[in-house]
């Protein structure tokens, strides 16, 4: 089964509202990352948080990591219609080689 699982599967909000997506994982990790995918395109890296970090910010993005609960959250503040996309968490684990495993994603729709 997959390392990361996102919640909710889909989220619809109004422009200007905040969007929160959650990710849970099962085993120890080296770091956790969030990616964005626009329809029909490849994924684009948003932010990385290391296992010894608890919170990280990048522009309108805030990521938290709770290794004791094996969970992470991505907050997008003041959302815009252009934020409409799918968002994926990914965990990186050193198993001899570095495997990057993705969750099923959250589909975010921001209404203008």
């Amino acid at each position, binding site marked *: 089964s997959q390392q990361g699982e996102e919640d909710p599967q889909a989220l619809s909000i109004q422009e200007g509202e905040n969007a929160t997506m959650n990710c849970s994982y099962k085993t120890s990790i080296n*770091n956790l990352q969030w990616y964005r995918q626009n329809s029909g395109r*490849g994924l684009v890296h948003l932010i990385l948080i290391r296992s010894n970090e608890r919170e990280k910010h990048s522009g309108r993005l805030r990521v938290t990591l709770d290794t004791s609960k094996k969970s992470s959250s991505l907050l997008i503040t003041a959302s815009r219609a252009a934020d409409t996309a799918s968002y994926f968490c990914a965990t990186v684990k050193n198993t001899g*080689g570095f*495997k990057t495993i993705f969750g099923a994603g959250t589909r975010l729709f921001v209404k203008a």
Partner: protein
Amino acid sequence: DAGITQSPRHKVTETGTPVTLRCHQTENHRYMYWYRQDPGHGLRLIHYSYGVKDTDKGEVSDGYSVSRSKTEDFLLTLESATSSQTSVYFCAISEVGRADTGELFFGEGSRLTVL
């Protein structure tokens, strides 16, 4: 944009035929990955490579093989395609391990339909 090229971008084939997808990078990154993306499953790791001739299995490796004879090329082969392998395939590259950044750069995907 990272220099990653996937080919072909679209392919329709019949059950039982062999298929090879190619991923070519110009970044000299050590790690290369093949994922498949299906509705409701997100991205699932098929195989990955951490150097020339060094490969390992991912979550869904059955029915797939890979080869990496040069740093820049990572080939994914379906020896005998089945309808369950209809999917969008993404190649990704990374320098993870050198600076523990682990950021993946993705290609634009290859859409494969097996009839």
